[in-house]
């Protein structure tokens, strides 16, 4: 009996356990909690200081955020001075030395930080008035001293020194230069030189001019009532004198007309810090603001599309995100990640893919609803911090938003549609007008990044955002390497002499885009020395150049002209099949000059002297042996993306720069030994 009872008991437990829980059922939420946005009180002192108070008595602490709202300042040769003036603020007043300020703040366990735009401070409620006394002394009676400036300059210079090896800092600084330019305040950053130029006088002048109550907001959050705060603020800030503050205007930067690839070389880097970025107009609180934020969140404002693609699908990175930052003057868009060297280009390809996907496909209701749920949640979670409500109040005032902007925020968020997201993506995502920017090891990444540039070129910058030509540093060559050995290595690299001499003719079809038009280049070559190139648009030949082994002609809209003299000499040499096998026979003199860096690759520089005396230079990749650049009188040609055709390698990407003009030819097809007829090279008159 007992046994049976025990058995039943076990059985029933087992069964009830079973019946009780079906784990595949995802729990449903309870009724949505009411999201209450804490209220704030506001008042203005007679000197113009606007005060906001958010009461919150959960912990016995009060926080002050004093913020000055002035137009950005272009600091030019003394870049960094407003930041330094901000630091100087807590180094002395007419009655306190720096030691006293430090001691007074630390003794009450408070924090107090100063910056070029104000003061942030907090303390336990019981020390509140002591904190206010220090704050008010600093804001009204700061006194800058040379010895303190000297210290800060020294610290700042050391800080700049360490930043030289911080890829994230370099990316931030140079990214700003790319987006805004150095003539715009947001694009400026301090250098050793500009820091050394800073004088006590300009710092003092800045403080005296800009630290005025009539352009200041004071947000007070925490364990204090409005009734307590009013008299205290009047007592400690009432005597602060108002004054006229200068305003300024700048030409607003715009996104580049075509995408540009840029690199800051860090030869030791094991990862690239990549960023696709451009300046973007988006005013805080404008009609688009919430919709555009939803769009960016889908893309990468959290662990969403970019993260899923670059991290979870491809393991390129630890994280990939995007930001669409609003600003009163000019905001920006940035998609960024840290990725291993070898996938730097693939990571950009995926970022561009995700940007284009949002511009061409509407997001599903399911995905949109997830994003909105997430944004609703994070908005609600942010309200845990009373500081959030203070920030809301400041934004409403600063950006002149409707008073109920944040009260209606969730309602407006819920109203965003898939069509809105689509519209926002097409308005704010600019995959073809961006800086494709990497801080990384140029030798590993440069060649593959050039394809993202409209002109096929990489722009190089130093860590301060100054353009650099990495290509002028000529290094000596190792012993044993000669012009002959370099050219021989090239011949082997593209397939070997045996295969090359079997080539009787070659047909190469190429395409490029110029000012929005697609041009086709068809080039024909027949051994031993015939060549022809047709340039056509929409199937119509616009221009044709031909050399039949004796004479050369150019045909265009203007008619046909014979090519003579110097230009003919040049074509004669160009027309020789496999000229690399017969430089000596053709009286071309070769000279190995040294090793240079070309698009981040070490390359041998071979100077060619033609029988006419004209000179040109070819660059051969030290590692692969392939020719990656030719410089002639007319311009520079870069070769990349070599592909095998019947055992011979041809460059499939050809970028040409002629004076200010540059364009990139994409090879569509290469055909060998099609038995081209001689008649093709006849001059049609």
């Amino acid at each position, binding site marked *: 009996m007992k046994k049976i009872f025990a058995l039943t008991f076990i059985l029933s437990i087992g069964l009830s356990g079973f019946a009780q829980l079906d784990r595949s059922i995802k729990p449903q939420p309870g009724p949505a909690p009411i999201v209450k946005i804490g209220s704030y009180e506001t008042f203005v002192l007679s000197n113009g200081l606007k005060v906001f108070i958010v009461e919150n008595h959960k912990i016995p602490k009060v926080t002050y955020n004093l913020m000055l709202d002035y137009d950005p300042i272009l600091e030019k040769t003394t870049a960094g001075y407003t930041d330094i003036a901000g630091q100087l603020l807590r180094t002395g007043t007419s009655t306190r030395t720096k030691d006293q300020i430090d001691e007074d703040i630390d003794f009450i366990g408070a924090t107090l930080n100063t910056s070029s735009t104000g003061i942030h401070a907090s303390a336990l409620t019981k020390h509140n008035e002591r904190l206010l006394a220090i704050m008010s002394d600093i804001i009204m009676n700061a006194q800058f001293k040379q010895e303190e400036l000297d210290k800060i300059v020294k610290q700042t210079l050391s800080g700049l020194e360490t930043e030289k090896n911080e890829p994230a800092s370099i990316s931030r600084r140079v990214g700003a230069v790319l987006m805004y330019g150095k003539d715009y305040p947001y694009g400026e950053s301090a250098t050793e030189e500009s820091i050394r130029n800073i004088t006590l006088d300009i710092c003092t002048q800045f403080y005296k001019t800009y630290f005025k109550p009539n352009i200041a907001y004071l947000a007070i959050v925490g364990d204090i009532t409005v009734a307590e705060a009013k008299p205290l603020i009047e007592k400690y800030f009432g005597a602060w004198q108002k004054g006229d503050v200068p305003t300024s205007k700048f030409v607003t930067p715009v996104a580049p007309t075509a995408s540009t690839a840029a690199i800051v070389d860090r030869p030791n880097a094991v990862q690239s810090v990549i960023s696709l970025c451009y300046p973007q107009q988006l005013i805080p609180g404008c009609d688009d603001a919430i919709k555009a934020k939803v769009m960016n969140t889908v893309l990468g404002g959290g662990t969403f599309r970019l993260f899923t693609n670059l991290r979870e699908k491809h393991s390129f990175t630890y994280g990939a995100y995007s930001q669409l930052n609003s600003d009163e003057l000019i905001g920006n868009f940035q998609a960024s990640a840290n990725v291993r060297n070898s996938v730097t280009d693939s990571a950009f390809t995926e970022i561009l893919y995700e940007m284009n996907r949002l511009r061409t496909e509407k997001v599903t209701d399911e995905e949109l*609803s997830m994003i909105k749920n997430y944004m609703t949640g994070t908005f609600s979670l942010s309200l845990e911090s009373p500081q959030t409500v203070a920030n809301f109040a400041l934004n409403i005032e600063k950006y002149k938003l409707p008073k109920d902007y944040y009260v209606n925020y969730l309602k407006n968020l819920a109203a965003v549609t898939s069509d809105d997201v689509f519209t926002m993506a097409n308005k704010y995502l600019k995959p073809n007008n961006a800086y494709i920017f990497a801080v990384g090891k140029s030798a590993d990444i440069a060649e593959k990044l050039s394809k993202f540039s409209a002109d096929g070129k990489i722009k190089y910058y130093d860590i301060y955002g100054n353009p650099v030509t990495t290509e002028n540093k000529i290094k000596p060559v190792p012993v044993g390497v000669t012009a002959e050995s370099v050219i021989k290595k090239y011949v082997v690299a593209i397939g070997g002499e045996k295969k090359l001499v079997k080539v009787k003719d070659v047909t190469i079809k190429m395409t490029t885009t110029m000012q929005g038009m697609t041009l086709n280049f068809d080039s024909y070559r027949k051994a031993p020395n015939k060549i022809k190139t047709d340039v056509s648009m929409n199937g119509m030949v616009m221009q044709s150049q031909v050399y039949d082994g004796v004479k050369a002609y150019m045909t265009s809209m203007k008619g046909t002209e014979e090519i003579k003299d110097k230009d003919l000499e040049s074509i004669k040499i160009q027309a020789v099949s496999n000229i690399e096998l017969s430089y000596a026979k053709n009286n071309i003199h070769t000279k190995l000059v040294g090793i240079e860096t070309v698009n981040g690759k070490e390359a041998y520089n071979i100077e060619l002297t033609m029988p006419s005396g004209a000179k040109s230079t070819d660059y051969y990749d030290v590692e692969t042996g392939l020719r990656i650049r030719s410089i002639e009188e007319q311009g520079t040609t870069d070769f990349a993306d070599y592909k095998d055709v019947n055992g011979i390698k041809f460059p499939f990407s050809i970028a040409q720069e002629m004076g200010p003009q540059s364009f990139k030819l994409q090879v569509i097809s290469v055909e060998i030994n099609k038995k081209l007829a001689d008649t093709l090279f006849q001059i049609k008159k």
Partner: protein
Amino acid sequence: MKKKNLFLTCLLLGTVACCAQSGKIDFTEYNLDNGMHVILHQDNTTPIVAVSIMYHVGSKNENPERTGFAHFFEHLMFEGSPNIKRGEYFKIAQNAGAVNNANTSWDRTFYFEILPSNQLELGLWLESERLFHLRIDSTGVETQRGVVKEERKQSYDNRPYGSLIEQTFSHAYKVHPYRWTPIGSAQYIDKATLQEFIDFHDTYYVPNNATLSISGDIDIKQAKEWIKKYYNDIPKGKKQIIRPTIVEPKQEKEVRDVVYDNIQLPAVVEAYHMPAQGTADYYAISMLTTLLADGESSRLTKSIVDKQQKAMYVGAFPIALEDPGLFLMFGIVNSGVTPEELEKAIDDEIEKIKTDEITEKEFQKLKNKTENDLVTKYSTQSGIAESLANFYMYYGNANLINTSIEKYMKVTIEDMKTVAKKYLTKENRVVLYYLPKSEKKGGN
């Protein structure tokens, strides 16, 4: 698997790892039959809730041939379960308006969600699924292997001074598993078989090795019912949990080395062996940290950064762990200053603590700062949930959240001088110089 930060970041950012606030934090705690410990704190002021599980497993539980396992799990744990498809874990949480993350230390791994309070049941279900039957397969393992390698490069290899903790610990410990750090070695993660990952989960990710800590806008009775529903039938672990008992022998002689890194300015690390967290000496050392490096008027900052201008930065961090950890001081020289000069300046300040006076006023300042830190610490629900779990898991006493302030306040000036003399000695320390690679001569 997530954007998690290693626990280390928290250690370096925070200074005094401490406790208690003015208002008492009430909580309920109990055990489930399967050994899982539950702690509930109710606070209905904001409609949010933090749901967390702390597992008592960190890098010190790892096989020396499989370092990085505990942290790798932090990534794997987002791979789903039979009821949560791959990639869905994030989506479900996001759809609920939640944020989630995780971190790993030498001693424990911590997972949390912060949700709107009407989603408490969902948070409980999510955590129970990966505790009960986490998906561990080759696809997930492969993906996360790649991700963790990039994490290592981003946070350690490609960052100036990024190897600091790893180098310091590997020089300070000869036999104790603290000789490696949670990020571990990619090579071992590559070598490990799928079965090894499954065994690790079966061993450490079991209810009897976990503390479920919940804080926020909850109804205690309802919370208990849901906890019973989702956790009661998860079986106890059957494998033996390995807790290292190995004791690091006392260091008899100063350890000194040079690390060449991609940096511009040399740095100096001084790391002293210190007692385990929770001991009386530990609280004295915490106060010593405040004396040395918390605030502009602190001894190291005032003397070395402000007055002598030998360093652009100096900090002190007690890395307090379950077994004896390290008291770490780190300084980056100002341009033109040698590491020898900076080391001497730090040593002079340590000597002053041992021999000179600490005034009552300075001591009162330390107490005021400590009190301020404590009050601030418990201003978020996630902070409260994590601290309750920490105090229970390490000390078996969650109420330390209310009482540990007394342990700090009991420390005397004499105690601080005593621990300085006892632990801050040359024989007991590791000194590392970080020098730019360009200064490396000869060798490889």
